[in-house]
Every structure is written in structure tokens, then in C-alpha cells.
């Protein structure tokens, strides 16, 4: 597979755009006109060729630009990567997991060679070649988790399983939907899912926890979540809320197609072997309303979802200020026709 990596930005001049191919493979999350919050976990099995779920970790045309944006965020705020001292085994598990899956699924871009514990990693898109000793952190320029966390798109949280729950004891979080790693690191499942929408049915989070506690090696799972973001900004962190919060005031019926973006998270969870930790990967995909509307079926669907969204969810997702502007912009695509169920673009 050959990938053409785009030069683009996710801040300041916001030159990020999706190619027609990237729009077509966008993980559109709404199979029905009505959206209800649910946990909807399914096995993370290989999807069709070209889909974002084709491989264990998805590398797309935004890879190089996203890694660069991540590096800027980490330089400005090193606290976006944190790992508690007992997570070192999980860090190495993460390094092995990401290196092995990238090298297996994208052999033109990445390669990994092993001679016992002496490993050599090559990342061609980012121009990295690194020889190191597996298990010896002194042979890497930084901790193994941060080292590979910087070379994969999306956010990662490492969950330690103990005391009948999961603890978010390490994370590299630079493209989050408004939650703070520095504040949340070390929290148990119930604590870091502190804020959940009121409409969430009682027991939903408990059942999800129970399910994940018995997650097995080689049987990963996934779910989609979504929110909205103004401008194609990956770093919508609470830390930088003063930088991006004001953008919510700028949306009107005329510019909503350009400014408003649907933000979909492909969340995948993998059991790690040595540490028994769970890797929680949160991969963010952005699409502007204009780009989405190149497939009228999606525009119709999202118009209905957003128009009829439960007020608690509107508030929870921070959409209140511009919901009406986006609904008005999308309404031109919606003739009210029945479009059936399913997330397909056409």
C-alpha cells in the first residue's frame, strides 16, 4: 500500500482537509436518525479493505501532520504524557504492540528487526531509525510509551487492572475531546468516567467495566464515539480551552459548513501480555460539514441526529452555542426522505 502523506496544520491557519478517499472511508457513526448514548462495544476484527478498521492501528494520509501536531503540543506542555512508576512493563508492552502491528500492516512505511533483545525500528515517514535493547529504557531517547506514542496517530491510555477495576495509570493525550490527562492520571474507572451524560442508563458503565476486565489477548474490541469541534483542531484540551473556547461563538449559518466539524473517535482496547494492562486507543477523525455533505445521505442523517439530540447530550458535548447554526446549514440537504438504516455514505 502506498500512502501520500499531506502537509497540513491543525492549529493557527488550519490547512487540514480530507481527500475524497479520506472522506469516503470516514467512520461515520450514525446508523439511525436518532442517536442515543450507548457503549456499543464490538470485536475489533479486520474491516473491509481501505476501511479505518482494516488494520489493528490505522495509518492514513494525515499521519505525518498529526505526529507533528502532537510533537508541538507535547513541547508546549510535557504534562500531556504521563506514566506512573509501576507502568514500566505496560510501557514496553505498548512499544512492542505498536511496532509489531505497524511493521506487519504497513511494511513499506515501517520495519522492525529483532536479534534477541537487540531491536532496530525504522519509521520511514518520520525519518526515524533506532536501535535499542528491549527492556532497557536507557537505550531509547525517552520512555518507551512516549517514544511510540509520538509515532502513532491518536491518544493512548494504559489501564492497570487491580482492585476489581481499571486505573488510567499512563497516557499520552494530545487530541482529546476536552479531558485532562494531568488531572485524570491515576484515576479508577468510575472516577475518570466521572462526568457522564445524565441520560446514560444506570449500570451501563458498570457493565462496560465488567466486560473489559475480562478482555483477552488477541481479542480486542472497539466502539465509536463522537462530538463536534470548531475548526479542525486536534488539541481541544481543557488546558488550552482559553485558546479554542471562543471559536464556538464564531459559527453562523453561512460559515458552519467550513468551521463545524464532526469529530469521531474510534476507540479500541487491547489486552497486553506482560503487564496484563489494557491499551485504550482513542483515534480522532475530523470531517467538516462541507466535506460530509459531499455525500448527501450523511448530511441528511447528521441533520436529523443533531436536530433531535437530547438536550443533556447537547450540553455534555458542548454543542449548545452552535447547534442551531449547524442544523440550519445542514437542512438544505434534507428533503425528509427515508434513508434506511446503516452508516454507508451512499
Amino acid at each position, binding site marked *: 500500500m502506498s500512502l501520500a502523506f499531506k502537509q497540513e496544520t491543525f492549529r493557527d491557519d488550519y490547512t487540514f482537509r480530507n481527500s475524497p478517499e479520506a472522506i469516503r472511508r470516514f467512520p461515520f457513526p450514525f446508523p439511525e436518525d436518532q442517536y442515543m448514548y450507548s457503549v456499543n462495544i464490538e470485536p475489533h476484527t479486520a474491516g473491509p479493505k481501505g476501511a479505518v478498521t482494516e488494520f489493528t492501528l490505522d495509518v492514513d494520509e494525515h499521519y505525518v501532520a498529526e505526529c507533528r501536531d502532537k510533537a508541538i503540543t507535547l513541547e508546549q506542555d510535557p504534562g500531556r504524557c504521563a506514566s506512573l512508576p509501576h507502568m514500566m512493563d505496560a510501557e514496553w508492552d505498548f512499544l512492542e504492540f505498536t511496532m509489531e502491528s505497524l511493521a506487519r500492516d504497513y511494511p513499506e512505511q515501517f520495519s522492525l528487526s529483532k536479534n534477541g533483545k537487540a531491536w532496530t525500528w525504522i519509521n520511514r515517514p518520520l525519518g526515524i531509525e533506532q536501535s535499542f535493547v528491549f527492556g532497557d529504557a536507557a537505550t531509547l531517547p525517552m520512555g518507551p510509551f512516549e517514544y511510540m506514542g509520538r509515532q502513532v496517530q491518536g491518544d493512548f491510555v494504559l489501564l492497570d487492572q487491580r482492585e476489581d477495576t481499571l486505573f488510567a495509570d499512563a497516557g499520552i493525550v494530545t487530541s482529546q475531546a476536552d479531558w485532562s490527562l494531568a488531572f485524570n492520571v491515576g484515576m479508577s474507572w468510575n472516577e475518570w468516567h466521572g*462526568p457522564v451524560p445524565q441520560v446514560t442508563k444506570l449500570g451501563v458503565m458498570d457493565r462496560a467495566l465488567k466486560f473489559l476486565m475480562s478482555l483477552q489477548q488477541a481479542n480486542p474490541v472497539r466502539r465509536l464515539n463522537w462530538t463536534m469541534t470548531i475548526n479542525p483542531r486536534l488539541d481541544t484540551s481543557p488546558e488550552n480551552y482559553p485558546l479554542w473556547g471562543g471559536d464556538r461563538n464564531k459559527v453562523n449559518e453561512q460559515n458552519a459548513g467550513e468551521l463545524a466539524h464532526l469529530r469521531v473517535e474510534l476507540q479500541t482496547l487491547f489486552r497486553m501480555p506482560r503487564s496484563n494492562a489494557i491499551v485504550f486507543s482513542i483515534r480522532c477523525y475530523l470531517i467538516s460539514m462541507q466535506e460530509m455533505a459531499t455525500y448527501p445521505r450523511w448530511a441528511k442523517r447528521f441533520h436529523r441526529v443533531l436536530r433531535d439530540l437530547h438536550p443533556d447530550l447537547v450540553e455534555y458535548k458542548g454543542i449548545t452555542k452552535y447547534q442551531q447554526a449547524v442544523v440550519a446549514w445542514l437542512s438544505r440537504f434534507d428533503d425528509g426522505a427515508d434513508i434506511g438504516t446503516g452508516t454507508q455514505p451512499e
Partner: protein
Amino acid sequence: MERGYWIRSKPVYTALLWNDKATAHAVLAAGDGGLAVLKLFQQALPEQPITVFYSPAGADKDYLPALQAAVDADLRVFATTAELLAAWADYLATARMGLRIYTAGTEKFMWDVTDAAADFGILNQDVMKELTGSLARSVYCVHCKSLTHEVTSNIATCSGCGRQLFVRDHFSRRMGAYMGLMVDAENPGEVPQIEEIYP
């Protein structure tokens, strides 16, 4: 309760109650936490040895005479909470499993006690806590990462960066603090009415 969602990270504090399955008991209180200790000693006492650490600092009333009369145990009194916490760390270093831990006072004091115990492998849920006196909160500024203590209002000025912070109910046990988020980030200067809600 914040609009649209609910928060499960906020700790729930209870009244202190002896746990009679133990090998020893340590009770740590400061200020108005003295009253909680007095109430605890009204209950049937456990058989195992009890050590009480008390600092009157911050108390509205002088509980010390009543404590000295009521506490039929090893009562250790400290002028400041800092001295109390230093003695607590020394005590933990030689303690054995089976120690039950009880604490009462302000939220900050209780989490300082709990943090010290956590360094010795005690899980925070295994420290029994009774909030007394003020509901004042410690607030973590998510923007500049400073802690502002003794916040009694819904909106507080950050001691680090000076921003006006909305105090959320989201609580970090590791920091012993609630999250503070810039209240006028979307509309600079538009700060809602400040009310004292954590007196």
C-alpha cells in the same frame, strides 16, 4: 450537579465508626475534626491499641480539654498539621498490616493524611474520612497546573495565573483537589455571579 451530566468522582464522606477487625487503630484529626474524634470515643471502644494524632490548628472551638478527658488512648497533640503529618509518616514506617485508619477535618487535611498513607501502599478507600468544619475545596487550575486552597465559592481566582476558575465537582484523589476551568474562556470578561457555596 452540573447541567447535562453527573459526576461520580466526588468523594462521599461518612461519620467515623470503629472497625473492630483490626490489629491497631490510628485516628488523625485537625481543627474541628476534634469533634468527630469525641463522637468516635462515645462508641464502644475496640480491643486493639489506639493512637490519636490531633492538631487544634484551625478549630472554631477548643476541643483539647474534652479530648484529653475522653480519649483513653495514646493521644499525641501537635501545634500544626505539618508537625502532625511528619509524625504520621514516621508512625507509618513501622506499622504493620491490620492497622485501621480514621481521619477527620477539612478535605485538604484528610487527603494529606491519605496521601501519606498511600506512600506506604494504603489504598485511599481504606482510610475512613469524616469531613468537619468548612466545605472549602482545593482547586487545581487545569491551565497553569497550580493549586489554590480554601476555595469557598463557585468561582475562584487562580493563585497561579489569576484566571477566574469555575470549580467543577470532578475530584482527583491523587491531587486531593477539584478541577478548575477558566469560566470566561468563551466570552472574556463574562464572569457569572460569584457565590459562596462551600462555606
